Each structure stands twice: as structure tokens, then as C-alpha cells.
């Protein structure tokens, strides 16, 4: 345990920055989708753009209908977060294993009566702990970051409790989008859009139809987001 604490102490800056950045990304994105596509029509336009775009489909998979903020979040950030988490895992794993062997601190530690495998075990414990903390932090950040704007789940719960008040309450000047969407299970939605990585989607032959795209000019949903029609 001392060795794990030592590793955390040694790499606390790197670990802290990664956790903050990834959790921050999770926390900020849902509400930013909700604010950017405040009305159903704005969102529909953006969803249509994204669904017709082959580049984004290749990168993130197909954005499923009806394209709620939660679906958009899981669709776009799911992929980005996966890649960033993988990069973090590689960098941290190298820093706590090979780099320590290379700079000689493992030799110093082993010279203090530490079993040969303990440095590796400690590194694995650190990585597992980091994954756990990252998962909790991202989940928490989505919950916290989504609620003020009204993620579907929070919105629905609030609606069930006091529908009247929520219906009248605009957030940032916009009506809460969660209240305007059809009431089906958020879980099902999330589950659906969690498995939408482009390759599998396209392999299943469900890539977006090439039907005449009248609106699609932008290749990025981020660009599309900035210019909602």
C-alpha cells in the first residue's frame, strides 16, 4: 500500500490533470448540447446533419434517433472519451512501470526488501483505482453538469415531482428540452447510443442513406452546432 501511495504521490499532478480534464469534458458537454440546441427544431437539424455525414459516422458511429442531448453526448463524447482514456491509460501505465524501471527507482525500492512483483502489483492497483475513480468522476460530472440544464433523467424526475413548475421554468432563457421530448426510457436511449461506434454500425450495413442531403454542408457536428439553421 505504501508503494501505491508513493506512486500516487509521485504522479499526482499527471493523474489529477487527466481526471479533471476528462471529468470536465463529461460535465460540460451535456449542458452545452442542451444550450446549443435549445429547441426541438434546432436539434432535429443538427441531428439530420450529423446523420447524413459520412465522416462523423466513421468517427463516432451513427447518431440514433431522436437525437436527444444525452444521445448526442454518448455518441460524440463517448468516442472522444474512449480515445482519451486509452491515451491516459497508456501514459500512466508507462509512467508507473517502465519509466520507474528505467530511471532506477524500482531498483532502489527493491533494495529495501520489496518483493520482486510488488512494484508491478502496485502499478496495477493504481491503474485499476484510477479507472474506478475516473468512472465515478465522469458519472458524477455528467449528473451534476447535466442537471441544471435538465438532462433527461433529472428533468423527468423533476417533472414527475412538480410538473407544473418545471414546465414554466426556462433555463438560460430556453425551455427545458427534456420536457419536450417524448417520454421513453432514457436508459434504453443511452444503451442504444452507447453501442454506436462507427465501424460496427457500418459493418451492420446501417450507415446513413445517401439520400439527397439538402442541408449537409458541414462535416462536423461541432461546426453544425455553431450554425444552427
Amino acid at each position, binding site marked *: 500500500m505504501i508503494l501505491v501511495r508513493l506512486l500516487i*504521490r509521485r504522479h499526482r499532478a499527471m493523474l489529477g490533470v487527466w481526471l479533471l480534464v476528462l471529468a470536465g469534458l463529461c460535465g460540460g458537454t451535456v449542458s452545452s448540447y442542451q444550450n446549443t440546441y435549445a429547441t426541438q427544431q434546432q436539434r432535429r437539424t443538427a441531428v439530420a446533419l450529423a446523420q447524413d455525414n459520412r465522416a462523423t459516422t466513421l468517427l463516432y458511429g451513427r447518431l440514433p434517433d431522436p437525437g436527444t442531448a444525452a444521445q448526442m453526448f454518448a455518441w460524440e463524447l463517448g468516442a472522444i472519451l474512449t480515445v482519451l482514456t486509452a491515451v491516459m491509460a497508456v501514459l500512466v501505465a508507462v509512467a508507473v512501470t517502465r519509466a520507474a524501471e528505467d*530511471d532506477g527507482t524500482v531498483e532502489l525500492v527493491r533494495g*529495501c*526488501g520489496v518483493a520482486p512483483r510488488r512494484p508491478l502489483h502496485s502499478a496495477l492497483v493504481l491503474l485499476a483505482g484510477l479507472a474506478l475513480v475516473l468512472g465515478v468522476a465522469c458519472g458524477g460530472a455528467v449528473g451534476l453538469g447535466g442537471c441544471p440544464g435538465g438532462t433527461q433523467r433529472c428533468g423527468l424526475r423533476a417533472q414527475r415531482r412538480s410538473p407544473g413548475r418545471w414546465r414554466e421554468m426556462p433555463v438560460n432563457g430556453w425551455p427545458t428540452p427534456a420536457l419536450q421530448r417524448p417520454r421513453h426510457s432514457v436508459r434504453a436511449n443511452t444503451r442504444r447510443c452507447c453501442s454506436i461506434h462507427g465501424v460496427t454500425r457500418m459493418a451492420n450495413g446501417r450507415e446513413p442513406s445517401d439520400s439527397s442531403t439538402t442541408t449537409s454542408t458541414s462535416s462536423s457536428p461541432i461546426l453544425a452546432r455553431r450554425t444552427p439553421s
Partner: protein
Amino acid sequence: MDAFDLSVVPGSVHGFLGPNGAGKSTTIRVLLGLYRASAGRVRVLGRDPARRGVSVTKRISYVPGEVTLWPNLSGQEVLDALAGLRGARNIAAEQRLVDEFALDTRRRVRTYSKGNRQKVALVAAFSAPTDLLVLDEPTSGLDPLMEDLFQRCVRDAAAAGRTVLLSSHVLGEVEAVCEAVTIIKDGRLVEAGRLADMRHLASSTITARPISGQAALVSERLRGLGVAVEIEADSVRLSAPRTLVPAVLGVLAEADADDITCTPAKLEDLFRRHYVAAAR
């Protein structure tokens, strides 16, 4: 490593010498169980370090040749961490050594010079309650004052019954503290034994200044004893085996020579012949 044998008497200070790349650090790592020997028999404190590494290294203080510490920890935190990993500590001894080595343990390791990092490792090694000290070129980077202190620490450790294996390039240091030495070259044993015995086998250097004009005569009589003599200006210089030293000095005294010096073989003379540069 091949055809190599190293045995250290418990409670002694053993010097371990050899040119760069001779295999000193490799040997030490095998002794600590960091490397596994492909052949041969290794016993440290009566145990095989390759199989029972923990029980061996728990009783060893090791100072690596290249001391790397965690840069964002302070010196005190490093000492705490090392003691914590070992699970045994002598805080009083540690504090005393920190004071003696004039080490500022509040500073971060990243601000330390090589010598200061070395000091942290030495303080941790000497203060830990261990039976064996394995020191791999521990004084590289230390200033002369600290080297004196280091030698005192080694003597104190030996006096306390601890065994010290000291790998070093500084011959004076080995000469000052070691009772026995092992010399290694290209992974092979070159020479091993008690320093006093080795010195005894080596020649002493004798210089003297005979009365003017008698240098040739004196050198002639010295050659009669069977030693090679060089004449430099009006003085003679020769290298004589221990057994011939009294006879040589007798001849010089008889000839009323001035400035007679007799220097016993230095470790350096013993080793110089083994330190022939070989690219490794």
C-alpha cells in the same frame, strides 16, 4: 560474468574493484536478487537472493551507483518512504546522520545535486537496521569532507558488527577502510585477498640521494642484491620486494645516503596493471 568468486567475511569491510564495465554492478544486482544468475551459486546472508529475495534484501542496505529518487518528494519524504518500504527504522540514527551529512531534508529532491541525492541514499542505508551494506560507488559526487565522513560511517558500521561490500573507483578510500579486496576485470576474478597480504607481495619504492659521486657505486652494490636501480641526476630510485627492503636500506645507510624514503606499495600500484583500458 565467468570464473568469478567473491566471498566476504561477516563483519568486515570488503573492497570490490575493477575497471568500468568489469561487472561490479552486475555482480551486486545478482547479490540483491535483482538479476538472476544463469549459472553458479549465490548465497547472501546464508540465503539464495534469487529465490528468497525479500528475506535477503530486508537485511541489506543498498546504495545504487546511480541514485535516482522521486523528484517531487522532499528529502524527508524519501527517507520516510524508504523506511516505510523496509518496515524497520532507526529514527535517532537517521536524524544524527542527516545532521552530520548537513542534508537539508525539507527541500525537494529535484533541487538536489548528485551529491545530495547520494547523501539521502547513504543516510537511508547507514541508518537502517541492517546486517549488510552493499554500496555501489557511493562516494561519486561527494565532496572530500563528506568522503571523510563516509569513511567514518563505514568504520562505525564495521565496528557495530555490520558487513560492508564497497564497490569503488577511489583507491584511497578502499585503502583507508577495507580489510580485504576483490578485483574483477571483464567479468572474471583477477585478484582477491587481504589487503595487507597483497601489499606484502608487492614491491616498495625506495629513493635516496647518495653522497655526490657515489651514485654509480651505490647502484652497483644495490644491483648486486638483485634489484633494478634507476639513477636520476644524483639520486637513485628502485623498486624492491618486501624481503629485500632491509638489505637495500642497509646498503643505503652504509653509504651515508641522504633523503632516504621507503614507500610501501600503494593500492594504486597493485591495481594499475589491471586497469589496462579495454573497450567495453
